[in-house]
């Protein structure tokens, strides 16, 4: 039986958990930084490599390895950029972490910067979460005041400035190269790679881009050692991670546990599916990862096992849907999101999401035609692996996986010219469904038979 492993969440229940004082008093605050400053930078990189920390931003790329891709130091600037743009539907781990204990990240930034010899680090925060932005600014200020940042960090001779930057409301700016363009003041659209950020990143200088949780995990590795970290999780997915449960679950929230835990175990901790209902489908790692149904309840939530089950661990954003949910409706809403957030740079994502959005809305409203299902599958095939960045690929996941699991439900919408579900039943709050207006309302009358 897997149990919770509070590391990043260790102080969340404390009074004023976000303050530096609490972090120092309860969370071994900045012990790791003191230790790191006595180490050779290269040894810190090796320690993180040995620990087996993999990027927590979704792709799971080994973090220490990423750092070691930086070209040899030429004395000119190199940057650490922390990706705190968290915008994927269902993903809600970085923002709670920054609300509850931002010092985990700030200490991680200091250690990582020292390890890669960066003297100016940036934290790019999703712009809509103003309270988090303020809290992070406060945390950085506290760290400056205490001498953990700024000139001559803790008397080590190492200088570090940290800039917190608020984004302007675009999911694509979480994609690391779009983030860099946005941070430079340009339009947030992904860059052509190569050159990779490690070679030419921010201001065309070597840059490491890491997720909040990845960097926040670094202090615990330095303090407790690589083998402590590697003792958690599975052979190739080591350490702990935040699992975010949301949706039709009794106690939604953050569950910090070793990688490899199953949804069944997590649901047990979370009090199960909401009273009186049963699991219909769920996403293992956010809306961009193909959905599962109840038959995957025992798939270990590590990179390899989820991959073997034809989905992705992603950001461990477990969105849980019970039997009251119309899968067409859920997919249609996700597609609205992707169509809205597509940056527009490449054809398949820009046009494909525009098209899929209309088909899904039409099918949901009862205007579907028989060809729609196959057309959607084919369109997804024309997007997946053809788009410029992973946003386009991700947009196809809910469509293809939901059709695979629930094709009959789509067909039922088409056959009966209506949605068989009552959206009020799936709502978790008082809710009057809105009817669509405008062009899409008209679309419902198209086709039919």
């Amino acid at each position, binding site marked *: 039986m897997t149990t919770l492993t509070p590391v990043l969440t260790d102080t969340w229940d404390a009074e004023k958990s976000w303050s530096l004082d609490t972090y120092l008093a309860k969370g071994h605050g900045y012990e790791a930084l003191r230790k790191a400053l006595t180490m050779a930078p290269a040894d810190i990189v090796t320690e993180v490599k040995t620990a087996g920390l993999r990027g927590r931003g979704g792709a799971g790329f080994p973090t220490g390895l990423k750092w070691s891709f930086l070209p040899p130091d030429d004395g000119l600037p190199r940057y650490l950029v922390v990706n705190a743009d968290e915008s994927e539907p269902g993903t809600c781990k970085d923002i709670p972490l920054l609300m509850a204990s931002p010092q985990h990240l700030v200490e991680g930034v200091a250690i990582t910067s020292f390890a890669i010899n960066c003297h100016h680090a940036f934290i790019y925060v999703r712009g809509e979460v103003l309270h988090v932005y303020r809290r992070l600014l406060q945390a950085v200020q506290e760290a400056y005041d205490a001498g953990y940042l700024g000139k001559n960090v803790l008397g080590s001779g190492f200088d570090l400035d940290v800039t917190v930057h608020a984004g302007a409301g675009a999911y694509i700016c979480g994609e690391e190269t779009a983030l860099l363009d946005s941070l430079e003041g340009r339009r947030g659209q992904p860059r052509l790679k190569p050159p990779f950020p490690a070679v030419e990143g921010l201001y065309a200088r070597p840059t490491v881009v890491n997720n909040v949780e990845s960097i926040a995990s670094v202090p615990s590795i330095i303090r407790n050692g690589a083998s402590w970290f590697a003792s958690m999780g599975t052979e190739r997915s080591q350490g702990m991670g935040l699992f975010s449960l949301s949706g039709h679950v009794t106690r939604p929230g953050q569950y910090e546990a070793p990688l490899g835990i199953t949804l069944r175990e997590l649901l047990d901790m979370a009090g199960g599916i909401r009273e009186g209902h049963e699991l219909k489908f769920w996403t293992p790692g956010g809306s961009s990862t193909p959905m599962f149904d109840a038959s995957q309840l025992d798939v270990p939530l590590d990179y390899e096992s989820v991959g073997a089950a034809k989905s992705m661990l992603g950001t461990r954003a477990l969105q849980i849907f019970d039997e009251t949910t119309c899968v067409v409706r859920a997919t249609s809403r996700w597609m609205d999101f992707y169509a809205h957030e597509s940056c527009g*740079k490449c054809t398949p994502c820009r046009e494909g999401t525009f098209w899929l959005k209309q088909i899904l809305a039409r099918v949901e409203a009862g205007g579907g035609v028989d060809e729609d299902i196959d057309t959607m599958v084919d369109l997804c095939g024309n997007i997946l692996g053809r788009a410029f960045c992973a946003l386009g690929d991700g947009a196809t996941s809910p469509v293809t996986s939901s059709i695979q699991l629930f094709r009959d439900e789509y067909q039922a919408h088409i056959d009966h010219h209506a949605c068989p579900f009552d959206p009020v039943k799936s709502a978790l709050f008082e809710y009057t469904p809105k009817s669509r207006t405008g062009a899409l309302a008209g679309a419902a009358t198209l086709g039919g038979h």
Partner: protein
Amino acid sequence: MTATADKATGAEAPVPTVTLTIDDVEVSVPKGTLVIRAAEQLGIDVPRFCDHPLLEPVGACRQCLVEVATPDREGNLRSMPKPQTSCTLEATPGMVVKTAATSPVADKAQEGIMEFLLMNHPLDCPVCDKGGECPLQNQAMSAGRPDTRFIDVKRVFTKPLPVSAEILLDRERCVLCQRCTRFSDEIAGDAFIALQERGAEQQIGRFDVDILDYVDDGARGAEATLAGGALTPDGTPFASYYSGNTIQICPVGALTNASYRFRARPFDLISTPGIAEHDSSCAAIRVDHRRGVVMRRQAGDDPAVNEEWITDKDRFAFQWQCAPDRLTTPLVREDGELRPASWVEALELAAEGLAAARGQGGVGVLPGGRLTLEDATAWSRFARTALGSDDVDQRARVHSEEETAFLARTVAGTGMGVTFTDLEKAPLVLLVGLEAEEEGGYLFLRLRKAVRKHGLKVMGVAPFATRGLQRLNGTLLASAPGREAEWLGAVTAQATGGLLPADLPEQEAQAITDLAAALAEPGAVILVGERLAGSAGAYTAALELAAATGARLAWVPRRVGERGGVEAGLLPGLLPGGRPLTDAVARAEVASAWGVDAASLPTTPGRDVTGILAALTDGTLGGALVGGLELADLPDPAAARAALAAAGFVVSLEVRASEVTALADVVLPVAPPVERSGAYVSWEGRVRPFPAALDSAAQPDHRVLAALAAQLDVPFEAVAELPRWTGERVEAPVEAPADLPELPAGTAVLASWHLLLDDGALQDGEPHLAGTAKVPVARLSAVTAEGIGVADGGAVTVSTDRGALTLPVTVTDMVDHVVWLPLASKGCRVHDTLGASPGDVVRLGAAAAGSDEAANGGAA
């Protein structure tokens, strides 16, 4: 294929190649080649939209997907999991590429992308300018599905969106390939068009300076243009001298030209190659005409010269050739009035009159600066043989004896010198008396390319850093007009171990030291403009500087015919090929080539333009033979008018009626470039031949002059080729800088040059183009403005005893006690109104604010 030359030995360094397989055919390409280019080499066509060989890859449209496998370390071929965009992928050794021709995956991928592009496209090909030459149309046929599956609602936009006075955008046709925005960003460096919004709402729009607190540093935001229509919400115009290129590279019909829009179908057009007649870059163009009417002009593809880019003037300014004032029959003056006449009669009268004038002191010859090489040679020969005159000068602009000597000494007969390619390889280019963007046309784009791609450093001696210089990341060596010689002299002194003046500000001393060192680097170039003729000693100093540093020197005139005219000897004292008129051997060579007696050629150098006009006025010369001359272009138009009015007899060869027509006794119509073949000579010294685009009965100048020669019984056939001149050349000029002018309070030194788009006669008939010309403003430094009590946006009156111009003031970071005016813009004809030239002292005074003239930028 770029081959790099080994600097020390001059040998070509071997370019490493890689060998790959595309559709089962092996091909070797230089390392770094993109797969799409390698496929082109094999004749395999991969459909594409965003890819353009002169723009950086973006991989945005995804149309060019191919299947790729590469060998791993053990040499086993491994397929890449996804199809790859061939326009962003570099070829690597052993790579195996399958295009749609051999790969079902690539075929399906391309078809899928094409379907996405078409689903929101209006499919209005039958009324689209691009229909018939449209990459989307063509590639939809080759790579698309036969039918559509899209039954939902298409995206629509209000149309058209005027991007500028001459460019209209139909957004629903746009495939968002970003070619236009990348062109404006990478090539022209003008922020006039940009991507906006996101997702399916993403669209091309006018650049919005309000976004993200954009700071206009003056370098990217354009200057105000005449057409009020196309402004950003904050009033910044969208303007670029190169915007027409975006229409041509747009792979669909989204960008259209206001004049050409809906007027022709590409398949009805006949294309003839041509050479643009607007500047000495001599850009290759394509003249597209239908039933004898030119409908549009496109950029030609000429990698050595203009790549695939031309200026908007080259593209849009062609209506002048068929303007309503075109002369079609000879005219003769009878009882004070011009009347149409037959060629026979006109030629008889012209020959008679010229012969008589020759007897009455001689004939002055003013052929203008826009001739082809053939015409220039004919004019040169006609002057020397038929008229026995060396009073010949092509320069319709400020000129000097120093310049005559400079051109005869260093330019004439020197063949190809510095080339566009050399500029790309140069470590440093120093611009003196030359604004590359305003006066060199395409030249600016090549300099910018060199700056961006090859680290070229540009320095400019000028009174202020223009937007052009700023977009070249150039360094300004601030100089008042007339002081260029001192600047250059100081650098020469530095280069030859001399001392710099002790009172020189440290910054300037540093600039001089840096410049001297940079000019000594191999490949450094000094580009001098014709404006140095107005700055005493400047040409002399430029020659000395080149000699002292080893830098190469090239002369970039503004007009298309000037370099050819120098080759042909259209300057006093200069025979064809750089031969000094005073050299008996030179005269003998020329005489035998022309089949005349050497003794019949003039032996003493004649008058230049100023001398000819003076001699016509006082009757020393009996008459004038004039060609395509705009009197307002001359430094003293009033004097020129008086001279031709006083002249005993005037013959004019002209395409269109002009001021000269009204003063001529016989007018002989000649053909515009589009109706004749010929060759221009670019500033590089490159001969640029072009065929006639339209059938026409109009005669080129050389034919008319031949007929006139026949009438005068002078032989005019080509007898022999002139060999290369190896004898002595004209002496180098030796001229000292002029003394510093006195500047009493309320006066300033005049700085001025032509803007690319101005009041020039060759831009007539194209109102949309005129709308993108810059609004004339007077530029003053803050100190100068304060001295006369005007503020930025106020109005200043610049005056001489001759007249006054009132213009809005733009306070500029520039040399004090200098006022800059556009030389010949609408409402600001400096020579004509003020009778002044750059370097002259003019009076300055605040004008009543908001006066009508100031608001219109008009003349007082």
